[in-house]
């Protein structure tokens, strides 16, 4: 039986909400319905973080808090979670440690980004391993723009607030909250609305397959980090929403000896550890993927199915030789990931078909993996060029290369000419690299846009081939990188 209201935990109590428009965002709910106006709208596209709230979910028996951008999260997506906003932190007449540290360190000036920053720091306070480094805090704040302070006092505040183990009211209430959340997890399908306008969240693949077959015009929503913008910027009607967040089987990670299989609804945050274990460069790519807020909401399947030519995951997974599994009704099929992308924003996905999971081969001993993300800003930016290389070696000779680029064509695409030119060359003979460096120009005819000119993209692509070969030859990165060094820090000194 389907449930016709969402339920979530708020200030120690369960809340039930129904009858909302499927496109209602969490931020609009908070500001316009609850009239809790502490959470701000800064950009309405999940980039500035002023709307950051914390979402609590039970994992491993305790409540874990993650930051999300409320401006692009649909209200329905909070079903089964705890929602914590900036108004909730000060309790019993006392500021939360994160809040008092922010005041003491002069961490706010105009104050408009502050609620979001406080909430990001709140999740850091709850979750981060101690001791905390500046780099770790910078990562946690990559999705929070502040235009006044220059961040230094905010980072100092975080260092102070997170100097010890969490002991705030939320940590103390963790067990109660966990019980409350467990009590709301009923495993029922969720369907709010009618046949022409609904927010649905099937609880099983079978329900999903059936519902989507019936409403193939519905919009499948995973993390909503892109669909949210269709609503806030594109003014999409979004009358029929099928949210995949409750489908029990889509959030699994299967770690085998030679492969990692990631369910479509696994978030980037959840996928991080497994991908980082494949290669540090993949970890670095994921560290720079969006922001903590985007990684907590956005999913691996969503990033692929969305088919963006500038999504960072697809080129990496294509270079690794990944396989994509799709399902329509009772039928499943598996295809090489690169074949999924047909043309700009056009994918090999049939009506009613959805992405199930992706299987990623791990790096073997004779393979060298390198991923380079080049963007205007290191953190929280979209790639101008993303180059990913997997080189198979026989001693010092390349026997095979798999290369994929993002940002160089209408789809994430392999560099087949360059791959061919690399086969057989010797790492110790830079004079033999010339053909490969020239070949990349035949692989892509990149576009001019506001991120970069075609000339820049072409030059960077060639230079990245050179960089990958240099690093493969020397085994080191300190002479070729600013960030994401692969050597241990002491070796880089």
């Amino acid at each position: 039986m389907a449930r016709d209201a969402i339920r979530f935990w708020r200030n120690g109590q369960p809340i039930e909400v129904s009858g909302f428009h499927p496109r209602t965002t969490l931020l609009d709910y908070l500001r316009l319905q609850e009239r809790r106006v502490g959470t701000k709208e800064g950009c309405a596209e999940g980039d500035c973080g002023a709307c950051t709230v914390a979402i609590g979910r039970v994992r491993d028996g305790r409540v874990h808090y993650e930051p999300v951008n409320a401006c692009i999260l649909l209200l329905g997506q909070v079903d089964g979670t705890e929602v914590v906003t900036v108004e909730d932190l000060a309790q019993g007449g006392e500021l939360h440690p994160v809040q008092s540290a922010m005041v003491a360190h002069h961490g706010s000036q105009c104050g408009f980004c502050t609620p979001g920053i406080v909430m990001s720091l709140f999740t850091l306070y709850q979750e981060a391993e101690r001791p905390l480094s500046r780099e770790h805090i910078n990562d946690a704040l990559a999705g929070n723009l502040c235009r006044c302070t220059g961040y230094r006092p905010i980072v100092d505040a975080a260092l102070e607030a997170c100097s010890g183990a969490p002991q705030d009211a939320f940590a103390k209430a963790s067990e109660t909250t966990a019980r409350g959340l467990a009590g709301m997890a009923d495993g029922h399908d969720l369907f709010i609305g009618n046949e022409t306008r609904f927010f649905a969240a099937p609880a099983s693949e079978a329900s999903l397959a059936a519902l989507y077959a019936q409403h193939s015009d519905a919009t499948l929503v995973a993390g909503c980090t892109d669909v949210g913008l269709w609503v806030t910027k594109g003014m999409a009607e979004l009358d029929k929403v099928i949210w995949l967040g409750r489908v029990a089987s889509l959030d699994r990670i299967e770690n085998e000896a030679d492969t990692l299989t990631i369910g479509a609804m696994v978030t980037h945050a959840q996928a991080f550890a497994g991908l980082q274990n494949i290669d540090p460069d993949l970890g670095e790519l994921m560290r720079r993927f969006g922001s903590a807020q985007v990684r907590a909401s956005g999913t691996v399947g969503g990033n692929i199915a969305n088919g963006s030519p500038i999504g960072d995951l697809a080129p990496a997974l294509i270079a690794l030789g990944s396989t994509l599994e799709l399902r329509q009704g009772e039928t499943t099929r598996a295809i090489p990931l690169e074949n999924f992308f047909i043309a700009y924003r056009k994918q090999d996905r049939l009506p009613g078909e959805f992405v199930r999971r992706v299987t990623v081969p791990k790096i073997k001993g004779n393979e060298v993996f390198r991923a380079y993300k080049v963007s205007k800003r290191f953190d929280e930016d979209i790639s101008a060029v993303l180059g990913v290389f997997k080189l198979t070696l026989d001693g010092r000779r390349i026997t095979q290369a798999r290369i994929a680029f993002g940002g160089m064509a209408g789809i994430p695409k392999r560099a087949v000419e360059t791959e061919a030119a690399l086969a057989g060359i010797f790492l110790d003979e830079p004079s033999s690299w010339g053909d490969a460096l020239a070949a990349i120009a035949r692989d892509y005819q990149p576009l001019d846009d506001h991120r970069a000119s075609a000339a820049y993209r072409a030059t960077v692509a060639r230079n990245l081939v050179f960089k990958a070969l240099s690093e493969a030859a020397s085994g080191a990165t300190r002479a070729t990188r600013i960030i994401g060094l692969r050597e241990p820090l002491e070796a880089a000194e």
Partner: protein
Amino acid sequence: MNEQSKAFAASTSPLRGEVAPQAREGVGSATSSMSALPPHPGSLTRSDPPTQGEDGEFLRHVRKPLPHDSGPKHVQGVAQYIDDIREPEGTLHVAIGQAPKARGHLVSLDVSAVRNTPGVVAVLTIADIPGKNDVSPAFGDDPLFVDSEISFLGQAVFAVVATTRDIARRAVKKAVMEIESETPSITVEDALARGETVLPDYAYGRGDVDAVVTAAPHRLEGQFRVGGQEHFYLEGQVAFAIPGEDGDVHVYSSTQHPTEVQHVVARVLDIPDSYVTCETRRMGGGFGGKESQATQWAVTAALAARVTGRPCKIRLDRDDDFILTGKRHDFRCDWKVGFDTEGRIQGYGVDLLARCGYSADLSAGVVDRAMFHADNAYWMPAVHIASKRLKTNTVSNTAFRGFGGPQGMLAIEHVMDQIAWATGRDPLDVRYANFYRQGENLTPYGMEVEETDTLLNLVRRLEETSSYRERRKEIAAFNASSPIMKRGLSLTPVKFGISFTLTHMNQAGALVHVYQDGSVHLNHGGTEMGQGLYIKVAQVVAEEFGIAMERVRITATTTAKVPNTSPTAASSGSDLNGMAAKVAAGAIKKRMIAYAAESYGIPEEQIEFRDDRVFIGNESIPFDELAKKCILARVPMSEAGHYKTPKITWDRAKGTGRPFFYFAYGAACSEVIVDTLTGENRVLRTDILHDVGRSLNPAIDIGQIEGGFVQGMGWLTTEELVFSKEGHLLTHAPSTYKIPVASDVPADFRVALYPNSNREETIYRSKAVGEPPIMLANSVFCALADAIHALDPSKPVPLNAPATPEAILRACEALRGRPMG
């Protein structure tokens, strides 16, 4: 107690623990007083004893690093911004109908489908305007709605008023516009080709620069481009208008200039100024973007309120905010310089070609200030500073922290580097060789630089504390053995003129009331945009009365209390309003003293206000007791104070005078690393030494310095405005327009205040701090050029601002002799 009142209780209760902030790495002795955390003004628990300053002054509040007065409210989300005000029943929401072309004529406008949308209450067009269709600050060239001529893509053509913001935003897209479009001017070159300007050209200088440059031992010339900048205040433009009686209206506006909002609302609605009240408690950031360009939205809300008779609110979507509001002017600087073998300038000429957008807005002052800073800190025997205010079919560029100064200053810093590359001298030595000094201290606009030693000593000290010379050697060694990664170093000075260059704007008013319980109501014409003006002025008033901070109630800026004010701009906020508030409080205090002297029979000079008491001869009474007695004795306990800046004069026609009361100084030394294969880069370390005179509040001032530097760094590196040739702004949201994030801040960031006292009689001898720190970021730009220069020291570096990875790679490839596409 419900949740909201609990949160409120927390906001007014003492901070837990009173934790002292950790002493920050690298902060010099000048800021060591920051280590003691004072009580927050919201806390009623503690009164610090006054402490004796270096020169023997006893001060209780001034010079203390008090936190921002709204800090506890900010962190709990209870500081109220305009969109947070609880809406009265029946409030309507406004969205703007925008022109889809950049240049042409509106032939017809059909809004019937908009009007017929359920939930739409009114559609406002030019026909609904009772008064003048003009929201400009001065020149009459900014229409509220397009009449016939379309001047930029996105320009407001009409407005929709609906029951919800969502309905308004969706309905606005249903309008049908017929437009005869023309090819727009987008770039400086387009405008030059058409010869279109928004204001006349302007120039001044001395000597025959062409002849001097021609005769000089060395000559260089070039073209240097400096990009614009979007303000990206976190709170977008917003206004809320509530209609009253007899046609009057109360407007809440997120504006730096409530008086201008008031006057323009009156102008457009055709009512007297006295019928309009504009109120601003706080902005979620301003940076100049809400100096003149908050007005249009306030006027739109007020017009909607007039037409519908209901409260009306407008809050721009972020993308619309990018598209509809002006930015920092971008410039093309055509320069030439003649110099001797030491790199000393003999003649400098520069044409500052500013892209102003479609209207004048504040471009008169912005480009003048670019000219006033074209010399930065350098003596130029022969000099010619020329400017053009070019008209383009883009949104009208406006004030942005520094107000043109940064653009003019960056050009001469680039020229300093060019001279260094040509002579082979260290760029810092070239700068030393050119600093203003005794006898060579006349600016191109005829103002004497009186404090020539300040900057020289400040730079010398920073050179030492930043280990500039040692690091220069280390970097050279690193670069010699590193073909791909290159490091760069630069130390650049800032000299920034303080005062509005429009002399009459250098005035301010404040209103102070003392009540019978000894609490004080403080109001002034300055607005709070996060810069800490309210707390600084409150410190001054509490100091004057010798009372605790918590007795002084800071109140929202409103045109009903202090009229005819200047914008909070030009870094002038605390100089002007602090003085006006001191005058007001001082006048009340004087009357209280006169009363006490008379009633106690004690000479006035034996009466002192301190520790919340008034000491009258050998006895003392609480401040509130004297206040009550004064009221019973019919002593007026309210005062409007006024202040105008002395000494300043400026004859624009002759190009000479003293436009600035004084100069603020600073310098920064930055080290960067550049990946010459991609242009990616990072600032590794920045040392800053900055002159704020004798600080009113060192914590607030450090915040301005750090924040300004980082904002300037964004302007010169990652922040790039890209317009299509049709006039679309392609970087119209934070997804495409990249301001600095936490990881962009130098990992090693050392900021210190330079111990100095303002030689002029400013409020407690402090100096203005809002804008000057932006230009400390010139050191980052010059360090990036320095790193690229290491690729081939025989060549100049063709780097323009912003130094995006693409701009850097382009320069790298040029030095490698393989120009990029």
